[in-house]
């Protein structure tokens, strides 16, 4: 039962990720990406990491993808972009990289079937508490660095947005 669920979800993840690459409409591609993220969340949940699954949905599918769709909506590309995308997806462009990465895929499959990979059965349950303890003990440096990076990004974004605003009241003064 759980193996069937896993393979089904994994198949959905792979198929939807392929559709992300192949669909010509940017919003459709993003929708497939959301499906892919959701199926990865299901796999996380199934293998004993419910907290990671919930965060995957809330942060990636719920927040980051919303912002991406927001930006694409602002651009409001329409049919012209689809035509342009069609021109970009010529076989000449993707044949080389696709061949090289299919060799990598073959290697991966051979490795998996030769039994060198870890088995997934031995995984144990990781609840919210374990994630929190790991984040604030073993990974505390990474957490602090990430928070500094985010703060710098926030301050930078604030600065960029503020300059525009400071300029606009001067226009009526000039008149």
């Amino acid at each position, binding site marked *: 039962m759980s193996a069937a669920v896993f393979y089904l979800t994994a198949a959905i993840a792979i198929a939807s990720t392929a559709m992300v690459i192949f669909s010509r409409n940017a919003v459709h591609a993003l929708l497939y990406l959301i499906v892919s993220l959701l199926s990865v969340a299901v796999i996380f949940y199934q293998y004993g990491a419910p907290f990671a699954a919930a965060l995957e949905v809330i942060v990636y599918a719920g*927040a980051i993808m*919303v912002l991406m769709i*927001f930006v694409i909506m602002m651009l409001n590309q329409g049919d012209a972009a689809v035509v342009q995308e069609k021109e970009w997806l010529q076989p000449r462009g993707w044949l080389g990289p696709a061949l090289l990465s299919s060799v990598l895929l073959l290697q991966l499959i051979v490795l998996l079937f030769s039994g060198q990979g870890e088995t997934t059965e031995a995984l144990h349950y990781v609840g919210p508490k374990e994630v929190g303890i790991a984040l604030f003990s073993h990974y505390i440096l990474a957490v602090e660095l990430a928070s500094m990076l985010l703060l710098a990004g926030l301050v930078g974004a604030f600065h960029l947005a503020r300059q525009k605003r400071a300029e606009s009241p001067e226009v009526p003064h000039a008149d």
Partner: protein
Amino acid sequence: MTAPAWITLLNIFGVLIAAVLLAALLTWGERRLLGFWQDRPGPNRVGPFGLLQVVADMIKLFFKEDFVPRFADIPVFILAPTVVMATMLLGFVVIPVSPTIGVIDLNIGLLFILAMSSMAVYSVILGGYASNNKYALLGGLRAAAQTVSYEVFMGLSLMGVVMLAGSFNLREIVQAQESGWYILPQFIGFFVFFIAGIAESHRLPFDLPEAEHELTAGFHTEYSGMKFGMFFVGEYLSVILISALITTLFLGGWLGPWLPPVVWFALKTGLLVMLFVLLRAAIPRPRYDQLMQFGWKVMLPLSLLNLLATAGVLLWIG
């Protein structure tokens, strides 16, 4: 998990059907209550107290032409209204209605509901995008910005409750309130969550994504028939879901003397739904920039301070 299959099935269908029926009934209830508060009768002609107005509206919606504009992005246009219904109904599965009623007992129940409410945003955004209409697009843009910002402290405001109860499991949170409802120690959390809940379900006064005085009908301008009906019922579902969640987290869920647990749960949830309607009747819309400023400059610091204070007190007590 040990319950027989028929009880599980009864729970699933009971909770979901009750949620949809209540949402449909709320379309009538809200208009009656609004009428009462605004000193006018409201829909009172069809059936006793106008109760059959719901049926009349439903028949009307079913027989309307289900129009899909030819300039729309058709698959996305059809997908959009189903998202809000599906995510809101999924949200109900973790709500513990009483000690024995409740579909599933997830140990990340609270996060699950937050995840579902963040997925529900897509309904409005995609509806606005796929309609390929200026007003709908503006409504969708507003919805995206509004929900993403209010989601931030919607989650943060609940973390105080999680800290007090020591669990994300909604059932355990209710049981932890035996000694006292969390609305008292977490009043700021309750306040922030209630306002964020209104913004998340984009109800008046925060219904700027569909503000009819400036955007005709916002994101659902192009929708008609049952597709519009699904947006509509989805909105009422989210009102009930937010009310049920506030009941569970801050008002002690099914806990209460004398009456059976289900009745207590229904009473508290009903009261909160009425509060939602009263707010709609009483408070005018803010301007869009005021809404965003209020969110980031008042609500976010408030919920962060609440989080800090709760953590500090908990550490101090031991």
